Each structure stands twice: as C-alpha cells, then as structure tokens.
C-alpha cells in the first residue's frame, strides 16, 4: 500500500497546482494576520477560507485528478493489487496532500498568531473540511464516466453546501418562525459539513451572541463538550460515508 501512496503523493507534488494553493493560502493568512495587532480579523479571513476556498479547491482538484488518473487506475487493475487498496491509496494520497497544503499554508500562521483553543479548533476543522470534500470528490467522480459531468457534479455540490444550503436554512427559519423549530435547526446543520464547521468556529469566537435565540440554543448544544464531540463525529461521518459509498461502487465497476 505504501508504495502506491508514495507514487501518487509524489505525482501530486509534481503537479504545481497544490504548491500554488499552498502559497496562496500562505499569502492570505500571513497578510491578514499581519495587518493588525489584533488577531480577530485574521481569524475571520481564515474562517472564510475554510468555508469557501478549501472546499472548492479540495473537491475540484480531487475530482479532476481522479479523472485524469483513469489510465493509471486501469494499469494498476491489471496488476496483482486489490481494488480496495487502489482506491484507498488514491484517497490517502489526495487527502494527505490537501491537508498538508492547508496545514502549511494556513495552519502555521494560525499556530503562530492564535495559539489558543480557537486557532487549534480552526486548524482541526480546516483539515477535516479538506477531507470531507476530497471524499465528496471521490463520490462525484465514481457516479459518472463523463469527465465534464463529474466535474459539474463536483461544482454543484460545492455550490449547494457553500451557498444554497444556507439559503434554504434561512428560508425555513423565516417560514416557520412561529413554531419552536430551534432544536430542529440544530439537527438540520448536521446535513451540511460547512455549516457544522461554521458553527463550531463561530461559537469558539464568541460571536454566537449575535445569532439571537437560535444562537443561544446552538451554544447550549455545541458549547458543551458532548455537543462538540457529536459535531466532530458528524464531520468524520461526512468523510467516511461518501468515501465508503464510492468504494463499494468502485469495487463493482467495469473498466
């Protein structure tokens, strides 16, 4: 297994895109932290990076990489290697490089400027979000053989999770504002990894006061260590479930 992961990892590193991604993350983070003595603005910049840039780059890069390595996958399949091993190696190679890029680009400035619970929380959540969207990329690339369709699915799922989902939640909140739906809203956030990440970080930032009564409910739930644990587990599920579905599909795929 290690041999294949190493081959894939080196191949990704040779691809200059991940390097460029790391450098851009680095420039954004270092400059936003360097602007003011207070680290709050830098944290907000990184929060936006985690919520928008990291998912987009992870899902797009991984999807395109998977389609471009179809020849490589075909070549490996005629060799004595388990299918599961091929798919898992691809996943580990891709996630390792995306997590590493995030860690070097945004993680190091975080640890330098905000070495408290907020900074560490952001670091962990950012890495998890990278993993979630790499896993979603595996799912979207196995759903169809057509490259442009697959990339389309990847972009659509990013749009859905990053923008549309919030709109739907807001719509529901206004439509049902006469009913006691605050508790249900907590459950609804579990349906989007980006929302889970956002709420976890916002609560650490003490910005929940601005979210009104719902914010208080969120604080009640996610503020406790049990709530925190559950939301981390949910994020992990967002990695495991899409990848597992794609693995089952890959095992039965004809090449």
């Amino acid at each position, binding site marked *: 297994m290690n*041999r*294949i992961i190493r*081959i894939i990892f080196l*191949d990704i590193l*040779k691809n200059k895109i991940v390097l460029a991604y790391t450098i851009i993350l680095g420039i954004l983070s270092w400059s936003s932290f360097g602007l003011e003595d207070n680290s709050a603005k830098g944290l907000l910049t990184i929060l936006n990076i985690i919520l928008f840039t990291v998912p987009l780059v992870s899902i797009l890069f991984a999807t395109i990489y998977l389609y471009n*390595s*179809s*020849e*490589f996958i*075909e*070549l*490996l*399949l*005629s*060799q*004595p*290697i*388990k*299918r599961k091993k091929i798919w898992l190696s691809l996943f580990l190679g891709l996630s390792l490089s995306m997590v590493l890029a995030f860690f070097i680009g945004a993680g190091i400035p975080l640890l330098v400027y905000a070495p408290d619970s907020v900074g560490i929380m952001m670091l962990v959540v950012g890495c998890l979000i990278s993993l979630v969207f790499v896993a979603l990329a595996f799912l979207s690339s196995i759903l169809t053989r057509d490259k442009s369709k697959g990339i389309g699915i990847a972009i659509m799922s990013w749009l859905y999770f990053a923008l549309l989902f919030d709109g739907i939640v807001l719509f529901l909140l206004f439509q049902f504002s006469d009913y006691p739906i605050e508790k249900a809203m907590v459950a609804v956030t579990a349906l989007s990894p980006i929302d889970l990440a956002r709420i976890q970080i916002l609560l650490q930032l003490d910005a929940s006061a601005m979210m009104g009564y719902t914010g208080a409910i969120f604080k009640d739930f996610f503020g406790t260590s049990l709530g925190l644990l559950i939301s981390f587990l949910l994020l992990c599920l967002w990695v495991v479930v899409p990848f597992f579905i794609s693995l089952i599909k890959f095992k*039965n*795929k*004809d*090449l």
Partner: protein
Amino acid sequence: MIEIKKLNKKFGKLEVLSDVNLTFKKGECIALIGPNGCGKTTLIKSILGMVIPTKGDVLFNQKSILKEYLYREQIGYMPQIGRYPDYMTVGQIIEMIKKIRNSNQTLDEDLLKAFDLEKIFDKQMRTLSGGTTQKVSATLAFLFNPEVLILDEPTAGLDPLASEILKDKIIKEKEKGKLILITSHLLSELDDMITQIIFMQDGKVHFHKTIADLLESTNEQKISKAIAKILKSQSNE
C-alpha cells in the same frame, strides 16, 4: 488452469457475453477470434477481474477469481490500446510496475532489449506513437515471467520487424509450457503459433477446436481458409 463457467455479462440491457463455458490448460496457445464487438475483450477483461461478471464464475487453478487479486501475479496482460499516465516516462512506468509487483524473480528483459526500449527511457508516454506504446505494453506483459499471457491484438500497430520479434517471443514462451491467449483478426499471422482456436459470435462461443481438428474437418492447409469455409457454409444454410 483457467476455467470459465457459465459466464454472463450485461452492460445495461446489452448482453455482451452469454453462457460462455471454456477451459484452458497449460502449454496451450489459444486464438480467440470473431467479428468486432463479439465480446472477446470483455471475456479477457473478466479473466483479469477488470470486468465483473453478471453471472457465472472464472476459476484460476481451481479457485474462483471473484474478489481475489493475487492470481494476477501469474498473468501478463497486454491490452489492445495501452493507456498510460501521460506525463510518466517509459522508464518511470517500467520502474513503477516493478515496484508494485515487488517480485524477486528474475526479470525477463528479452523484449526490452529486442525493442531497444532503453533508448527511449526518458520519453514521456504521451509523445510515443501507437506502435511504440504497444512495444511498452508487450514488454510489461512478458517482464515478470508469468505463467499465463493474455495478449489482446498484440501485433496490431506494430511494424513488421517488431511484430516478428513479438511472434518469436510468443513461440518461445509457448515452448516453455505457458498458457497463451491471443485475440487477433490477422488469421494469417496465427498459423505457426497457435494450437487451438475459439470462434466467438454475439457473445457466444461458436466453436472451440484444436487446429488439427479444424484443418482436418475442412480439408484445408491454412487456418484462414478453414475459417472462411466454415463461415461460408453457415451463411448458406
């Protein structure tokens, strides 16, 4: 050595293989022929586990290959159209496969030398012509001294010199007692290599005969003429 039992494969509604039963033994050199789209490549890919059968089973040394992978150590496969990562060089591809196989057997580098591949070791795969890519595929198939060789249209795209080298190599391996499975449309090329012939049509095995039987039953000297005679007599019926 390889036993195919009631193999069925459907792609959606299209039935590509229906109820294929075949047995291949050591030391045989089998030609798999038939019109385009009759399921030859699908059959080969099911033996390799690249296509998963809808129904039926393939046994390799009496063991089912479904969900297995180690048996592939004993198979050398040369695809019809070799697809390789574009930006890897010839040398890198061969090194990578060596690393993946990680075999400590002595490598069979006859073809590597005969095709003079060392000269193009630093060329990227995407810059190679179709024929040169075929040479790389052939070299990889023979490299690990496999017990079974599966060659999908091996000489298509090769120049006469290279295809002669490959044919000599196939005959040499056959004499070592290996099982060789070839698909081809060039019947004239097969004459001095094969011992058995399988004719497929519409996903079914039409006949599976030894060459001696085939020539005797049709009173012909050449395989191509014998096949033509059988096909003609069928279309007259």
